[in-house]
């Protein structure tokens, strides 16, 4: 049996019965859907060892090759697998701990992610530290063998569901900017943490403000050396190879097909043909770019593949949302309180060019890393 068959048949056998309602649910803008059942689904995936497929075998992963990972994401998307409720654990927290963590940390934290029982959130952004992450003000200090954390994070996706948060905090009070930061793992269920939901422009809520008021975590729960938090936080980006992008594209392809189908059904295809064909062309490019990225190794990398990817897919996705609305016509603005999938596409994609490094920041990175253009520095006088 090929790996593809193995994935497909496992999904066919398990994404049915009580999990059937999950097909096609969750994801950006729709994280509120079927939350409890998706938590169960994460545990179900664990029974098939489908969590951490990219992780090395030594830590309990499957050690899948890039090709296998691509196959997994493709089949998962084809089967309509629900958005993974612990992607922040599997994709960010886990790999960071694998790369920079101690053996004890690996033993403590990886099994919970692999079992689908411990969910994670990412505590980077703050009211005064967005694109400029080095401006974080959340503080932490070691007192009697425990880190005490004070400050505020914001836009923290899925914090209301998470058991743990990885937090960038300033542990050296005399430091500034990139120095003196630490990467702390903080349990969410404690009196010192308050999570307040923020309603998004979609009308739904999946990100939060998180207040730390003398929140505590064990002294061991720092990944890397205290003060090396910036390196740890950034280190992850280096591993980004765009594998999940290919899975993401299966979703994009489906969304695009829905828009074209609608245009053909309601007679607007001719009118929007040029835009629809352009959108199709760009969708092919996303695939070609992702494949090229996967075939690029350290030696041939230009260092900005991920940035180019983001600048290709995020604006494309946003435009697809707009096209979906145009194809639907005025009635696209009508609502019964629940967003239709097309309305959700339209509204949620406004965030695609903001999170995960805004488009402007991606352009800065390309200018600096690839072309070595000097920074645009402004000094207060």
């Amino acid at each position, binding site marked *: 049996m090929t790996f593809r068959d193995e994935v497909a048949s496992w999904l066919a056998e398990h994404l049915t019965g009580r999990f059937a309602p999950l097909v096609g649910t969750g994801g950006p803008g729709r994280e509120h859907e079927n939350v409890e059942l998706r938590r169960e689904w994460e545990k179900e995936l664990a029974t098939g060892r489908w969590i951490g497929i990219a992780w090395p075998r030594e830590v309990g992963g499957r050690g899948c090759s890039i090709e296998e990972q691509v196959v997994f994401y493709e089949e998962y998307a084809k089967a309509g697998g629900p958005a993974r409720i612990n992607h922040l654990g599997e994709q960010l927290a886990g790999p960071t701990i694998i790369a920079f963590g101690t053996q004890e940390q690996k033993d403590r934290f990886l099994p919970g992610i692999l079992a689908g029982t411990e969910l994670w959130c990412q505590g980077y952004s703050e009211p005064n530290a967005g694109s400029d992450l080095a401006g974080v003000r959340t503080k932490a200090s070691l007192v009697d063998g425990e880190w005490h954390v004070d400050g505020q994070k914001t836009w923290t996706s899925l914090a209301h569901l998470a058991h743990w948060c990885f937090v960038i905090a300033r542990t050296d009070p005399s430091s500034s900017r990139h120095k003196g930061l630490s990467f702390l793992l903080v349990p969410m269920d404690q009196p010192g943490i308050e999570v307040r939901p923020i309603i998004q422009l979609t009308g739904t809520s999946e990100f939060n403000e998180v207040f730390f008021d003398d929140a505590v975590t064990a002294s061991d729960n720092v990944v890397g050396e205290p003060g090396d938090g910036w390196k740890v936080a950034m280190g992850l980006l280096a591993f980004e190879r765009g594998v999940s992008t290919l899975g993401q594209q299966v979703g994009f392809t489906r969304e695009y097909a829905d828009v074209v189908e609608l245009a053909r059904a309601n007679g607007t295809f001719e009118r929007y043909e040029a835009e629809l*064909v352009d959108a199709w*062309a760009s969708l092919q*490019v996303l695939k*070609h770019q992702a*494949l090229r990225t996967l075939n690029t190794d350290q030696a041939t990398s230009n260092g900005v593949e991920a940035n180019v990817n983001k600048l290709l897919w995020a604006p494309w996705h946003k435009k697809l949302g707009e096209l979906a609305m145009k194809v639907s016509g005025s009635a696209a603005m009508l609502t019964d309180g629940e967003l239709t999938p097309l309305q959700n596409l339209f509204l949620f994609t406004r965030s695609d060019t903001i999170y995960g490094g805004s488009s402007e920041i991606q*352009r800065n990175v*390309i*200018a600096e890393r690839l*072309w070595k253009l000097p*920074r645009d520095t402004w000094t207060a006088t």
Partner: protein
Amino acid sequence: MTEIDDLRSAVRDFLTDNAPVRSNLEDNPSTWKRLSSEMGLTSLPVEDAPLSWLAAVIEETGRVLLRQPYLPTVVAATALKAAGDEQHLAGLADGSLTAALALDGDLTQVPHGLEAGIVLVAKGDELWVCEETAVEPLETLDLTRPAARIQVSAGRHVGSALHARDLEHISYAAESVGAAQRVLELVVEHLLVRTQFGRPLGSFQALRHKVADLTVLLEAARSSTWYAAGEPEDFAVAAPLARALASEAFVTVTGEAIQLFGGIGFTWEHDAHLFFKRAWTTALATDSKALKKLAFDRSGA
């Protein structure tokens, strides 16, 4: 480093030394000789080199705006070989014979028509090998790609023109990517050394972001071109698509480049206009909207 990277850098070295941009304002028969007999670049199609190698070489010829008819000659050889038509292969391979392409059937303005030993002509969707019976050179704004109005013999039917056209598409895509890449490099060099307001131009975010946007456009075109050059299953979709995207990128990059260079970019002395004009030769011969639609229809989307 893979074989294709080695090939790329050998060709780049050769062309930088023997056919720098300015040298392509005039014909230079010795360049053709060295490129074919010394470097053996014209024999790649006959030696069954992968299409990706050919595309890599053509990309390099784009960087210097090579004047010699490398692109049409290797496209012709590849197409004839694929069609099982052997007659001209030896000549095309050793460079003693060059080709021109009239795959849109138009003989009134054929690139490299002046010197062509054979012409691949499409009549409808059928491909014919013809010989020139009359040639009238044309003056063109593009100083590095000569063109001619020609008449041809009845010729010999060799099969369908569809694959030959796709080969031409991927070749123009590769050339456009190579040329646009070179222009962007020149732009960045300029932005690093030219200072205004007491700082390098390249530190102004408006310009940094412009460069980044051009980079994305170009990288996208390159990804599609390399994908198509790998002769994937959907080559017939990927090739016209790559040409459409690459020619659009080429036009945009060269147009913006003149802006980024400022006054110097508007001079006859500077290379910017040579690239800009080549881009327009390519773009006007490329109905990118139609090619995208063709690809879309072929894909069954």
